[in-house]
Structure formats: structure tokens, C-alpha cells
């Protein structure tokens, strides 16, 4: 047998002599390898059992996680959407203002005026200087208006919607109160009363 063949089939010891694998140890090595594979199987079973236990623990926890992860922004959006989704009969009554008070606030620009109607109606006509915080898109609009809203934390805020039986202004006003705005009121007459009184109007998508 050539020397290179011999070296490839055997291994050299540190002393330089050639040592052949001990055939008696082969079954032991195989058994050890098989044991490691079986143990890895045990680890896999442990992982599956842990996931099952985690699902059960989550099911009975005080604040369970949803199955699919939501980013902090998505959670905030969901929270904001929930705030304005309360049925009208559950809304705490917000302070209200009449047409005269509303008109003077608009003229003196002493309050932040918010239009709670959908953007389509807002673009067709709104109170001059008003910003659109639509109840329908509350989470998105709230984030877009974060700067003017932050500046108006202690300033009076007056919310209006279409008027009459419209609840959007009250829903938005209560959501803002929940979010920490202290001086929020509702112009109950809404857009109907404003336009019926022949007050000026702006158009377009000012936000």
C-alpha cells in the first residue's frame, strides 16, 4: 500500500507513530452520536411544549398579547381609534359653546378650532383657521396634527362637526380630554349653524 494511502486511513499520534482507529470504540461513538440526536429531539419537544404553555399563560394573563406583533405606533393608532369608537350614549358630556362664543373665538384666534367631519366635507367648506381632525381618520389625523395639538395643550380647543345629530365632535372632544387636553369644548351648532348664519368659509385641505 502506498505511504500516502496509509496516512489517509490512519492518524498520527503526537509522538509521530501511526495509530489506527480502535474498532472497539466505533459502536460507542455511534451510540454517543445517536444519543446527541435523541437529545436534540428532546430539546425540540421541550420548545413545542414551551410554546403551548406560553399560549395558555398568555390566554389567561391580564393583558394578553395578540398573536401577531404590533409596533408601538400601531398600538397607539389602535388606542386612538378605540377612543373615538365609543357609542354616543357612553360619552361623558363635554362642555359646549354657542354660536356667539364660537364666532368670537374664531375671530380672535384665541382657540384651536378642530373640524371633526370627514376630510371630503372639510375640503368642500370649513370654518376659517380650522384644522381637520376627522373622527373617521382620528389616529392618522391626530399624528399629522401632533405639532399644533402639542402647542395647544393648555389653549382652549373647540371641536365642531356637521351639527344637529352629529356625534363626531363630541367623540373627538372626549378623546382629546382622555389624551390630556384640559380645555376642550364642542360647538354644538356645527357647520350647519355656522353656514346658516352666513359666516365666512374656507375650502381646501388645510391640515
Amino acid at each position, binding site marked *: 500500500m502506498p505511504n500516502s494511502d496509509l496516512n489517509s486511513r490512519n492518524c498520527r499520534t503526537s509522538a509521530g507513530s501511526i495509530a489506527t482507529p480502535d474498532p472497539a470504540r466505533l459502536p460507542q461513538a455511534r451510540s*454517543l452520536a445517536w444519543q446527541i440526536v435523541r437529545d436534540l429531539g428532546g430539546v425540540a419537544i421541550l420548545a413545542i411544549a414551551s410554546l403551548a404553555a*406560553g399560549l395558555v399563560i398568555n390566554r389567561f394573563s391580564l393583558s394578553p*398579547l395578540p398573536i401577531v406583533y404590533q409596533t408601538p405606533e400601531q398600538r397607539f393608532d389602535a388606542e386612538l381609534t378605540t377612543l373615538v369608537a365609543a357609542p354616543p350614549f357612553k360619552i361623558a358630556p363635554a362642555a359646549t359653546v354657542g354660536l356667539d362664543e364660537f364666532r368670537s373665538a374664531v375671530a380672535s384666534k384665541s382657540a384651536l378650532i378642530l373640524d371633526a367631519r370627514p376630510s371630503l366635507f372639510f375640503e368642500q367648506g370649513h370654518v376659517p383657521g380650522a384644522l381637520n381632525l376627522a373622527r373617521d381618520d382620528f389616529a392618522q389625523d391626530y399624528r399629522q396634527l401632533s405639532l399644533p395639538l402639542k402647542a395647544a395643550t393648555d389653549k382652549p380647543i373647540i371641536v365642531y362637526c356637521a351639527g344637529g345629530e352629529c356625534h363626531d365632535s363630541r367623540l373627538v372632544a372626549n378623546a382629546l380630554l382622555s389624551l390630556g387636553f384640559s380645555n376642550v369644548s364642542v360647538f354644538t351648532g356645527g357647520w350647519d349653524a355656522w353656514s346658516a348664519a352666513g359666516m365666512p368659509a374656507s375650502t381646501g385641505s388645510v391640515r
Partner: protein
Amino acid sequence: MMPPGNLRRNYAVLAVSIAVAAVFIYAGIDKLRDPLQFADSTAAFAIVPAVFINLLVMGLPPFEIACGVLLLGPWTRRIGALAVAVISVVFFTALASALLRGLTLDCGCFGVGAPSRSRMWLELALDVMLFSGAMFVYLRSITRLPAPAP
């Protein structure tokens, strides 16, 4: 009677098992306390797809606690040690990948903390120690198994 060398090694296995088990049980219980924060920490690694993050967050704390408990029992120590070794490799890979990508985050390994790269390096070192400890226990346990029948 057991030779003194073997006896010392058995005590060493027991000591390492208890230490690793304590770390894992503590980490598991801590993660159970604030799963939402742990989910945000996991998402910050940007490795796990969003659909699997919460499943991982739900399953990992029981897995860590189970690893710790298994490490404490003489008959279950082998599986516990291998599980710790496997999960330590996973943690190490995630942390090393975040460090290589220049991320600064709170790994969520032991409760909530401020994102810090120095802490990430420390936790990487801890992973190496946990892996070494777990492999020591596992290899000691597996080589003491009875020889196969001829």
C-alpha cells in the same frame, strides 16, 4: 468508592448546573412580567418576522424556566444543558448580528433597560459563559451514560 477527581468533577457539574439554572429561571420569570416590552425589544433586532415575534415572546419564558428546572434534576440535566447550549447559540447569533449591524438596543435578556452597546457586549460575553457552562454539563452527563450492550 468514587475517586476524588470524579467527586470534584461531580460537584463542579452540580455547581455549574445550579448557576446556569438560576440565570435562566430568573430571565424567564423576568420576561413573563412585561411581555409587551420584551416583544418591542425582540422587534428591535429586526431579525424575526413580525408574525412570529409574539409567538417567540410567549414561548421563550416558559422554555427558559423549563431549561432551568431541567438542569436541577439529575435525570433531566442532560436535556436541560443541551437546551441551554442551543438557545445560547441563538442569543449569541442575534446579539452579534445586531452589534455588527451597528444597532444599539436593549436586548430584553434580563428585564427592561436603556439601549446600550456596552451592555450588549456584556450580554454577548454572558452568552459565551452560559454556552460553555451548558456544554460542560452536557458533555459530562453524556460521557457518563452506560456503555451500549455488546
